[in-house]
């Protein structure tokens, strides 16, 4: 629970990542507030209009952001164990690259082709060094997903390079 340490901080030191998150949230809540005020309110709904809950949310988020900022100045809240783990940015980078490729290639190339590329990049990010084997597994999996969703769930995701080749 939060309470015990909230009130006593003998060695206050700023926890930078937590502070960044708190400030980011504060900015986001300001943004929510600004967007709320730009919602036009018809005088017909003067009682509880469409802005009351957004306003409550914006104020709530701002308050919580301030509370988080206070905690950040008192040493932050991230678990020690979590802090000690150094982030593997290279690995994360490959996964993110896979996601980016997927977003940008899914329109021109179709779902299956984009998925295979994403699959190879993500498995590489996770440390697998067999791109050809992974491409094959990715292809099988993407086709299973494609036909499974198309046939069983009736989700039509649209054809692409590989789908058209197979006459789907």
């Amino acid at each position, binding site marked *: 629970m939060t309470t015990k340490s909230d009130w006593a901080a003998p060695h206050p030191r700023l926890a930078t990542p937590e502070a960044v998150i708190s400030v980011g949230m504060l900015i986001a809540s300001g943004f929510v507030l600004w967007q709320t005020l730009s919602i036009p309110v018809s005088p017909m709904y003067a009682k509880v209009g469409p802005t009351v809950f957004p306003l409550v949310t914006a104020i709530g988020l701002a308050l919580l952001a301030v509370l988080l900022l206070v*905690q950040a100045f008192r040493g932050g809240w991230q678990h020690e164990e979590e802090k000690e783990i150094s982030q593997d940015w290279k690995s994360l980078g490959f996964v993110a690259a896979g996601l980016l490729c*997927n977003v940008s290639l899914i329109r021109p190339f179709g779902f299956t082709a984009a998925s295979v590329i994403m699959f190879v990049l993500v498995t590489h990010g996770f440390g697998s060094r067999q791109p050809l084997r992974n491409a094959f597994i990715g292809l099988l999996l993407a086709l299973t997903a494609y036909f499974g969703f198309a046939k069983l769930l009736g989700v039509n995701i649209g054809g692409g390079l590989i789908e058209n080749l197979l006459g789907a």
Partner: protein
Amino acid sequence: METLVQLSHGFTVALTPTNLMWCLVGTTLGTAIGVLPGLGPALTIALLLPITYQVAPEASFILFAGIYYGAMYGGSTTSILLNTPGESATIVTALEGNKMARSGRGGAALATSAIGSFVAGTIGTIGVAFLAPVVVGLALKFGPAEYFALMVLSFVMVSAVLGASAVRGLTSLFIGFFLGMIGVDLQTGQPRFTFGVTELLDGISMVVVAVGLFAVGETLYIAGRRYTGHDEIVPLRGSLYMTAQEWSRSWKAWLRGTLIGFPIGSMPAGGAEIPTFLSYAVEKKLSRHKEEFGTTGAIEGVAGPEAANNASAAGVLVPMLTLGLPTSATAAIMLSAFQSYGINPGPMLLQTQPALVWGLIASLFIANVLLVLLNLPLIGLWIRLINIPAPQLYAGILVFATIGTYGISQSPVDLILLYVLGGMGFLMRRFDFPTAPVIIGMILGPMAETQFRRAMTISNGDWSVFYTHPIALTLLVIAATALIGPSVYGLVKHRHLRGPEHMPGDA
């Protein structure tokens, strides 16, 4: 008696060949995703939501319920053999279960957890069948003001009281409120937070949020900590049959776990972890084999918490089916399936959709039987699933995440949203923000807003409805006490005892 008659009608629905097939598919799939780390019932049901456009409501809810129950069974297998709890509710199972597996009694641990889950799941489902009509009777007296108050209480319990930190839990909840408000306001037709993007007028799909937080966020989180060492799978040793002594140590723990789990689960507060921790503490206190706890592994420490977990999972269905109140991420997603059928979840559900509700409850009994059969004789099959290597597993999860979200609208906007939410999920995991309140806030927030506005319209803008109605007032007072009580207590205590030791990371 009325309940038994209804339940037998339910069985005629659940025992049709098609619905039995859906139950089998659901329990099998549920066990599989429960066993696999990184996948959970909330994510799986979210990905399968399009099925609601294809089949009758009975069929899809039987499927979803099978997944929900199956994931509990599968999750304990992973906890026992891998010591990596798939979800927070199986942390306690891992404590003793993994110790048992390491000392060569993995078979008995798996057996007591599967049979305990069966006992607790069955008693819990009986509880749902008999408690649901009672709660409906109460709920029919509720007006919008009472509903709003109940939802506020539920918000406070789910986010502020049951988690590690009230501030972070509430933050997640409010983020969920914000996401839920995006789109056209149904009462005035006014677009809110759409930023001029046409795709956002219909609101953000629940699927995108759930998949983004649970699948993409989790994948990024695991990718970022790749070198933190690998979990070792304990090979399964020992027969799956329990000795007479293990039976006699288990059955009381199962019943006690059920008694702890079901009432807590069926409260409009939810929370699957608390009953498992409580049950663990009770078993440790009552056990005649205290020396086994934390050393070679005590079977009571697996039997009790597993039963508590499954009983509370059954209990969660009570507020969901009778009040339309979801208290877990999975329940929230199932609730959105009701909405996709145009069915209004709430106290009228039992009267307007008896075949659906009683068929669902009956199918839960069948699911429990199927799950014991699937999980004990076929355990070797599931163990092989744990061996799927992480690179292919997580890359595969992302492929399914893509088709599940892109398939809804075929718009790259949804994919971009998915990945932005995935990035948020990553930060939330890394900085210990709970993710379930986001999903609950997103579904329940707009419902609370509707009830609030309805109450104010009926009262003609008079705020007093919230404090002159006794039920509404009581619920709001409980909520306020639960929210600020701990801080006030902490302040008072601090005045007495100056400066308790500061624990960074505990805040």
